[in-house]
């Protein structure tokens, strides 16, 4: 009797779920029907005034918004 995982297809680290999207398979420690946000690892910080102006002291969390033009204007 076999233990562990049995695959009836070639195991690949990502799955092709649609023509354009490859979704990485997460290991068995991640459960179905649960959401997972990656944990941040502190590297370095902006100095205080720069952090205040950017809205965060962590460069990896900095996600500036680029104002979108309405399609009609283009």
């Amino acid at each position, binding site marked *: 009797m076999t233990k562990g995982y049995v695959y009836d297809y070639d195991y690949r680290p990502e799955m092709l779920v649609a023509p354009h999207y490859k979704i990485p398979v997460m290991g068995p420690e991640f459960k179905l029907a649960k959401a997972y946000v990656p944990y941040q690892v*502190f590297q370095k910080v902006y100095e205080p005034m720069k*952090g*205040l102006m950017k809205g965060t002291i962590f460069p990896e969390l900095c996600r500036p918004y680029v104002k979108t033009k309405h399609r009609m204007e283009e």
Partner: protein
Amino acid sequence: MDIGRERLELLKEIMAIDFSLVELNLYLDTHPLDQRAQRLQNEYVTICKDLKEKYEEDYAPLTHVYASECPWGWIEEPWPWEINYEMGGI
């Protein structure tokens, strides 16, 4: 309301260091074992205390916990929403 260049610069420095402390506070809430972050937090706390002490001595109280002269200084204007932060507008 304008509050003078020096007072405004000090207030902005306090905003900046306080903001770093808020960010580190939130980070440490979910990373309570991160010693590097804790060391940085402790460093900033000292700087923040000094800046706030200077501000309260020279200009105006930031919390109601302060030794006042007469009249009661806490009520003094400007209140935060009245200040012209001189970032390029009103």
